[in-house]
């Protein structure tokens, strides 16, 4: 749907060009959710604005960004907070309306459809100042949907949202890509969510390039590590690295979630969990979960940690 060839984006002022990202050969295809990632200030929003036609590319070719093919969800705040949710979604129909902006039945139907796809029917008659940040993003996505464009570009739609809302938004975008066959590009910092929902990742690197690939390949070939230079986070296990500062190896026997979270607690507190060690903890999960440390029987992880600390 959108394809770029040797595209360079950035700013030109006083005849001097400063490119943020160069030599971009990227593709955005229908039915695909692409997450665009990279550190702050590397030029993600600039590329998005260029794709959206809001600023001119410095060099290169850009195909498929004709007028009316793209809808946007930006980080720009809507200051007219007295506006009705329905009226804001109705803005999506503006490209199809004449000067006197009268909505036809067809427009109302499309607006209602966008509202039901984003499940914001209960917000229809609210005013913007009554919405939470998460609800506001859903309304902005509904507005973009009402434009009925094959391509949607979103700039950090999950910023400032709690985990639940972040998951809701990403799942919605994924659903829209699949069901409505839209090409969706999302700038985001949500590494874990992007890895689990994106069909494709664009990764802005430190040498002004954009690497693209499916999430798993980029994890395994170390592209993410190179860009983000994680400090104490192991992307391959998805966990924060702990230092086993107590120098006390522990063997943990058990299964399922109790095993996982007991291991988490032990590593967090500086114990090393290994296959063979003198100290052995057994987890038994019959009616209730109990932890056995030598002759002690403990009823919670915190009791277990306290017992370990005493020894």
């Amino acid at each position, binding site marked *: 749907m959108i394809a770029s060839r040797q595209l360079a984006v950035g700013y030109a002022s006083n005849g001097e060009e400063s490119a943020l990202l160069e030599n971009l050969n990227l593709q955005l295809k229908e039915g695909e959710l692409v997450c665009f990632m990279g550190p702050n200030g590397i030029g993600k929003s600039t590329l998005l604005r260029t794709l959206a036609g809001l600023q001119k590319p410095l060099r290169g070719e850009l195909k498929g960004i004709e007028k009316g093919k793209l809808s946007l969800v930006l980080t720009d705040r*809507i200051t007219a907070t007295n506006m009705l949710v329905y*009226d804001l979604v109705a803005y999506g129909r503006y490209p199809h309306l004449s000067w006197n902006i009268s909505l036809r039945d067809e427009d109302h139907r499309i607006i209602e459809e966008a509202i039901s796809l984003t499940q914001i029917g209960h917000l229809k008659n609210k005013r913007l100042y009554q919405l939470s940040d998460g609800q506001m993003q859903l309304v902005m996505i509904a507005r973009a949907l009402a434009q009925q464009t094959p391509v949607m570009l979103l700039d950090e739609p999950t910023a400032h949202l709690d985990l639940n809302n972040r998951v809701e938004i990403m799942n919605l975008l994924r659903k829209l890509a699949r069901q409505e066959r839209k090409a969706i590009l999302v700038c985001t910092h949500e590494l874990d969510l992007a890895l689990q929902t994106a069909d494709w990742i664009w990764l802005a690197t430190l040498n002004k390039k954009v690497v693209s690939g499916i999430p798993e390949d980029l994890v395994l070939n170390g592209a993410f590590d190179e860009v983000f230079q994680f400090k104490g986070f192991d992307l391959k296990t998805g966990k924060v690295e702990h230092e086993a500062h107590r120098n006390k190896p522990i063997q943990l026997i058990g299964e399922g979630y109790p095993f996982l979270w007991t291991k988490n607690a032990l590593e967090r507190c500086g114990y090393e969990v290994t296959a063979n060690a003198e100290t052995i903890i057994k987890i038994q999960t019959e009616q209730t979960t109990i932890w056995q440390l030598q002759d002690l029987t403990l009823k919670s992880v915190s009791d277990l940690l306290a017992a370990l600390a005493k020894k």
Partner: protein
Amino acid sequence: MNESGFWTRGLFLGFLFCLLLIADVAFGSISIPLSTVLSSLFNPESSTFSDIIWQFRLPKAITCILAGSALATGGLMMQSLFRNPLAGPDVLGLSSGASLAVAIVILIGQSAGVGSILMGNWSVAMAASMGGSIVLLIVIFISRFIKDNTSLLIIGLMISAATSSLVGILQFLSKAEDLQIFLIWSLGSVGSTHWGEVQVLAIITFIGLAIAFFLQKPLNAWLLGENYATNLGVNTSRSRFWIVIATALLTGGVTAFCGPIAFVGLAVPHLIRIFIPTTNHKILLPFVMVAGASLLLFCDMMSNLAGGAQVLPLNAITSLIGAPLVISMVISNKQVRV
């Protein structure tokens, strides 16, 4: 709010407007009985009352209607374009430009001895429109080089500040009599217009209001900011140009014939947004026009009634009535929203 809510409130406002129009014609330093007002309106025979109505009260009332709707519409457009509740029709610096030109004519022209030729309504109006137009040209010229509205707003305010200080210098150097003439002009007045001037003002105002009416789609789109407006297919630079032109016509016309009338342009859009909570200019524009006309009719009536035999300056009344009105409505609604 649903459609019927708009209609009821529209009818209410329309009724209020008619009432104020009749009251403004009837009341003044001489009160005219209501029956006489109506009979001389429909049957203009020559009598003292009829002459007062046709030669004085009616042109004044129509000037109020034109100026009120023009300023309120200009204020609404500026608040939407700049997404700023503090913007008014004078933020582009037009009224200050007009003031400077009028100050030059009155303060310098008078002492140079050409005062008697230059004085009179038309010359002041000509000077005011020239001053306003020059500032408008500067603003349009500069707006071609800047991309965002905030810069335009700042430039407008800077031009205002610069011209005001020039006016200040002129005032400092002038004679007391000239100063008083200028001061009276700068306090605003709707009472000095005759039919010929009303006609010109009406033409300018109708053109400005018509342009504003055709701009309802871009005005709505500007509420979302430039990026979204562009994405929604609105030509932002063209619509900004026409919004500036329409506001300039409306403010410039009024300033030329009535002086710089304060407050109406800033206050009326806020009052209307509280009266009918909508952000849609399709509804806002007609409401703001009628409300602006009504408020100025009311202020004019008060300025004639409150001072007894003296007619109080219009600007004093608009602010005195408008400010408490807006403050109370804002307090009861907790927050100002554009």
